[in-house]
């Protein structure tokens, strides 16, 4: 398949179709409305269902209804819209329904802004709705990776019968990069969806629900969910190392667009004879705790610098993973401000020069 130059939002849309997800529910919100505009033209061509709802609340619930048919269904939105879908996502998790929810993040909280940000990390990975449930969360840093992870999301949603979320910031949605699509998305075998509501012919009726008034039954349902999440931690951790070696003193931890900026910084610092490494989580849940600890435990690594387009949310998972083994430092811009490579370089030099590496991160009073 030839490489074509495509905007992130449209590439994500096309990727979903290639994964056999032809049913899409949406509500307009910057910076990802192009997904809907693209699919409004494309879905009729592939014989799927395209529907714009009256709100993201309705869209999230249309997704629940559509997912119950057993077909691949998805929606895309941005931060405030994703907040409105949290109820439906909690219900889908509790009812063991697969669906893909893509968040092209913008600045928050509240109406916030429309520029790229990563300040929905907590909402995405710590379960934005109520109850003991998690959502598998993937974070691409290039448009090609967004295409690949979008397709993967549908496979994982079906594999675990659980909502899967792909989160990219506004840049991932708005950037144009050359991408390549497979003719057909090759994926491992999945069990048949015999749980889908297809009408009770020759069987007892199915009830797809999340209400269990008996506390023991509800606890059992939560245990079933927990088993999935343990399995995700075993099988679905994804990350990438960049320039991590025995020569680095500082390990950067960043994901999505922020990680790409760090890669630029690492390349430029190499020219100045400074070796810095990057650990890029791709799966934000399950979070690559063990793998981070392994890299941080290298004797040559003196300090960790977590960099986010937020006030520090993945930071808490990084600190939990490292558990004080090495000092953890943070640098972040938010609200739509994207840190420049020079800003990041300045932070690294500050760390290297004052040798703050040895003292653990002080919480500002």
């Amino acid at each position: 398949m030839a490489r074509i130059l495509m905007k992130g939002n449209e590439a994500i849309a096309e990727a979903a179709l290639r994964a056999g997800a032809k049913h899409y529910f949406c509500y307009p919100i910057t910076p990802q409305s192009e997904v809907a505009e693209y699919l409004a033209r494309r879905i009729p061509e592939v014989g799927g269902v395209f529907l714009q709802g009256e709100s993201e609340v309705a869209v999230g619930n249309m997704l629940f209804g559509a997912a119950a048919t057993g077909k691949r269904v998805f929606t895309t939105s941005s931060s405030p819209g994703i907040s409105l879908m949290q109820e439906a996502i909690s219900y889908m998790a509790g009812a063991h329904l697969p669906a893909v929810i893509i968040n092209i993040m913008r600045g928050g909280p509240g109406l916030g802004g429309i520029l790229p940000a990563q300040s929905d990390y907590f909402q995405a990975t710590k379960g934005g709705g109520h109850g003991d449930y998690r959502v598998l969360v993937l974070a691409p840093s290039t448009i090609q990776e967004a295409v690949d992870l979008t397709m993967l999301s549908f496979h994982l949603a079906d594999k675990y019968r659980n909502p899967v979320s792909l989160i990219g910031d506004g840049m991932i949605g708005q950037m144009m990069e050359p991408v390549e699509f497979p003719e057909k998305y090759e994926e491992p075998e999945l069990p048949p969806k015999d749980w889908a509501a297809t009408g009770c012919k020759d069987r007892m009726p199915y009830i797809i629900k999340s209400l269990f008034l008996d506390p023991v039954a509800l606890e059992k349902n939560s245990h079933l969910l927990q088993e999935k999440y343990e399995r995700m931690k075993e099988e679905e951790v994804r990350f990438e190392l960049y320039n991590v070696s025995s020569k680095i003193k500082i390990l950067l931890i960043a994901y999505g667009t922020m990680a790409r900026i760090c890669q630029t910084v690492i390349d430029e610092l190499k020219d100045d004879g400074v070796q810095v490494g990057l650990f890029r989580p791709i799966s934000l849940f399950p979070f690559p705790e063990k793998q981070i600890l392994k890299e941080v435990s290298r004797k040559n690594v003196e300090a960790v610098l977590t960099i986010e387009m937020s006030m520090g949310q993945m930071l808490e998972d990084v600190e939990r993973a490292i558990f004080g083994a090495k000092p953890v430092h943070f640098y972040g811009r938010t609200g739509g401000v994207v840190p420049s490579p020079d800003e990041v370089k300045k932070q690294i030099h500050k760390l290297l020069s004052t040798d703050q590496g040895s003292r653990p991160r002080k919480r500002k009073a």
Partner: protein
Amino acid sequence: MTRNNRTIFERPEALYDVVTHYCPGCTHGVIHRLVAEAIDELGVREKTLGVAPVGCAVFVYNYIKTDFLEAPHGRAPALATGFKRLRPDMIVFTYQGDGDLASIGTAEIIHAANRGEKFTTIFVNNSIYGMTGGQMAPTTLPGQVATTCPMGRDVSLVGYPIRMAEMLATLKTPAYIERVASHTPRHIVHAKRAIKKAFTYQLEGKCFSLVEVLSTCPTNWGLTPAEATKWTEENAIPYFPLGLYKQPDEMESD
């Protein structure tokens, strides 16, 4: 009384053979039976999907023998939309109370009706929140006492009860909308006709259909079942007039 002669009234097949959790005299039980009878008579049980609300009728899936989804409070029309659009070959219905449909779910029902979604909604209006213990609903009548309006609904504070059938009938998109009642046998016979008509419109893929069924709530109205019947006649029906509010083959005359 030997059973050798013909049975001319019995439990419909689409109704599980169980005792319901509904209070004595609550006409949810009647409405469940009417839906089950309509499903049986149209022969669609094995290709029907029900969407349960949050409220007393959340357990409708324990009583009506079809596949079911359980919706978050007020969202049943959205679930039904998502499902029906992907499976137009199946019969889809939502069963909702007035708290579910006329309060938290108003946007969902208005837009589903306005898009002309081809499913059927059974809207049970008993002018109160039942499951949660008798709070004021958007359909609680002026002056009617409820636990969150203990001095009676004060319209100067919380406005008048919403007439959903009339409101939805103003939408231009074709639909079948009728309000019926379930407190006397005569009304029940008519209600059954309306419910069956609604499912028939869906079977023909014609339009969105909604039947608002006035229902009783003896427990939370603080009345005996017999008194509740009278209350419906003297209070609910005057405010919520019964009748056909919209039908698809009306010639649009604008």
